[in-house]
């Protein structure tokens, strides 16, 4: 079969000592930074990006993927041991994972999380390998109107999944698109909204925006809340879950993997939803739902599997359509662009080594996480005990070095301070920066496709409704928006985000 042949080729690429080493280092460093409380995968990847600059494209992406999985897994570790989720997707893990830790079963919780994630990662990698080529061939039929409609759908999805007010989320999307328009006009080269700053001629650098909004602003916010962290490190005994745990977890892991894989493919950050969906499902079908929230192993296994599966399959829209479904993938786009690769359906043909090598390394990265993390838990625990008052200056240092080395530009570092201020200000007014980041990356692509569509149609906006695929995508987007505005869903959505 074709998929197997391609996977074998990918393995050949990923298993070279250099790439294997990069995957390992990525997973290790990613976990190390991801474990630190208050640092999610977005800030972690943005910070560690400079590590990959001296590598070739394949090596860089393999390492970044490793960093991403590592950061995800590190977030779960923190969620279980400290009850402090580093990111939204591990919020669910705190519910039962931390309870298990309190009962002295931190080891079992960590073990189940690792094994569940590994299983989900294997299945999702296969899904990427099988679905990727199919979707890419569909995507080759896409014209400008279809791309535009798809991005609209993605942004609507991001609005729906943002917590809090819809009006505010839409406003953040528009602001992101506007920031994406800063820089030279694609056709005429006229500078737009550059405030006569020459360094803005190429637009705002996405690492600057990401580190400012997600790294620096987060630090200033964390400093407002006095630290209260009880690390449950001393209690970790056997890391392996009991046979009973594994038997109880098998079905939730399977269901979580399925949910996560499906949600991860959706444009508009469906992966964020996966752990919530899995937790809700497990609680609903459990024989004793009252156990949930008191250390039920299913409440760790299902969401962790869903989380990892979603993380994996969210690569599909990126690799096949060139459209990032969430801010993390948006960072990947940035990393690919730095390496001179334009993500899209053509990557698979023009650069099969990179495409399949990356897919193979996804699986390897997952395997490595199980192998390295279980024995290294002790180290992560010690890292967790470093007080925040020491951590944050070091994080700032790495952020600044990282940003400076991207372009060797001190203006970029000033930009980090500026967007740190913006990010802090936005949260003070109740705006969430995640949709902004996604819109920022999609912005230039959207403008290009909008202009091209209207050029083909001679200025007739009906072009988006006359073509079946684009009409379908826009209808789904409209339906999503309607759903959220409906009062009954509104209420349930509120509950879901509160949990």
């Amino acid at each position, binding site marked *: 079969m074709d998929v197997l042949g391609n996977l074998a080729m990918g393995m050949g690429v990923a298993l070279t000592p250099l790439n294997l080493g990069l995957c390992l280092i990525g997973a290790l460093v990613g976990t190390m930074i991801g474990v630190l409380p208050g640092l999610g995968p977005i800030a972690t990847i943005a910070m560690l990006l400079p590590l990959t600059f001296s590598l070739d494209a394949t090596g860089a992406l393999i390492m970044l993927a490793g960093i991403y999985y590592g950061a995800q897994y590190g977030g779960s570790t923190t969620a279980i041991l400290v009850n402090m989720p580093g990111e939204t997707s591990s919020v669910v893990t705190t519910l039962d994972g931390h309870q298990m830790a309190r009962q002295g079963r931190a080891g079992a919780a960590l073990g189940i999380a690792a094994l569940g994630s590994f299983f989900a990662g294997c299945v999702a990698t296969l899904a990427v390998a099988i679905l990727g080529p199919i979707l890419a061939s569909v995507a080759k039929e896409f014209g400008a109107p279809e791309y535009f409609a798809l991005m609209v759908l993605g942004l609507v999805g991001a609005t729906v999944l943002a917590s809090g007010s819809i009006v505010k989320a839409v406003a953040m999307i*528009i602001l992101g698109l506007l920031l994406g328009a800063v820089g030279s006009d694609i056709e005429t080269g006229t500078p737009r909204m550059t405030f006569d700053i020459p360094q803005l001629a190429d637009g705002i650098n996405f690492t600057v925006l990401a580190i400012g909004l997600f790294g620096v602003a987060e630090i200033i916010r964390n400093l407002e809340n006095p630290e209260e962290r009880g690390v449950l490190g001393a209690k970790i005994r056997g890391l392996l879950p009991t046979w009973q745990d594994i038997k109880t977890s098998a079905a939730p892991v399977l269901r979580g993997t399925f949910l996560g894989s499906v949600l991860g493919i959706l444009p508009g950050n469906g992966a964020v939803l996966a752990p919530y969906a899995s937790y809700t499902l497990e609680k609903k079908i459990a024989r004793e739902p009252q156990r949930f929230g008191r250390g039920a192993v299913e409440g760790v296994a299902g969401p962790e599997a869903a989380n990892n599966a979603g993380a994996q399959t969210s690569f599909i829209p990126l690799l096949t359509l060139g459209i990032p479904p969430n801010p993390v993938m948006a960072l990947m786009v940035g990393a690919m662009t730095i390496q001179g690769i334009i993500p899209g359906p053509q990557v698979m043909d023009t650069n099969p080594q990179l495409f399949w090598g990356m897919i193979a390394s996804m699986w390897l990265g997952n395997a490595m996480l199980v192998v390295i993390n279980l024995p290294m838990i002790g180290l992560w625990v010690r890292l967790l005990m470093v007080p925040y008052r020491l951590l944050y*200056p070091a994080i700032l240092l790495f952020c600044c070095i990282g940003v400076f080395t991207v372009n060797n530009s001190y203006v970029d570092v000033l930009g980090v301070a500026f967007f740190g201020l913006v990010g802090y200000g936005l949260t003070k007014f109740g705006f969430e920066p995640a949709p902004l980041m996604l819109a920022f990356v999609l912005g230039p692509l959207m403008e290009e496709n909008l202009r091209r569509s209207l050029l083909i149609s001679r200025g007739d906006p009906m072009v988006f409704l006359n073509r079946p695929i684009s009409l379908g995508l826009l209808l789904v987007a409209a339906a999503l928006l309607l759903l959220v505005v409906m009062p009954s869903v509104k209420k349930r959505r509120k509950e879901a985000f509160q949990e």
Partner: protein
Amino acid sequence: MPPPQMKVPAAGLGIRSPRNFAGGLVLLAIAALALWQIQDLSVGTAMRMGPGYYPRLLAFLLGFFGLVLMAGSVVVHGDGLERWRVKNLVLVLGAIVIFAFAIRTLGLVLSGAALMLVSALASHDLRWREVLLFTAGMLVFSVILFPIALNLPLPIWPRL
């Protein structure tokens, strides 16, 4: 624990959700700023868009949503304004700005030390001995990692 909310002086104006009102104002201000920046760019037609078409569209949309938020804040009760911790903000951002201006001439060691020490002042319990030792350690580590091991073009010492 959420930071304390300010008692709202705007209550007299019939504003029921000061946070949304202020947020809407901010959006309006950003939209105005963008429109001012692109005022000279040609708009063109839908078929042949000029450089000003798309940003102008977005700026108007942003301003519109700002107005929606402000209008809503008169009708629906909502959160008060949150207090800004100006001291932390100034220290952390100031440390970054110092680093930005110092890195090319003073090098990684001095500008990195300035960044870490100034930002450390924002901590609510500051222990100098610990901070100094840790800063020294981190600087040694980053000098070995970035300019040496990764070969990134960062000056280590001041250029004289």
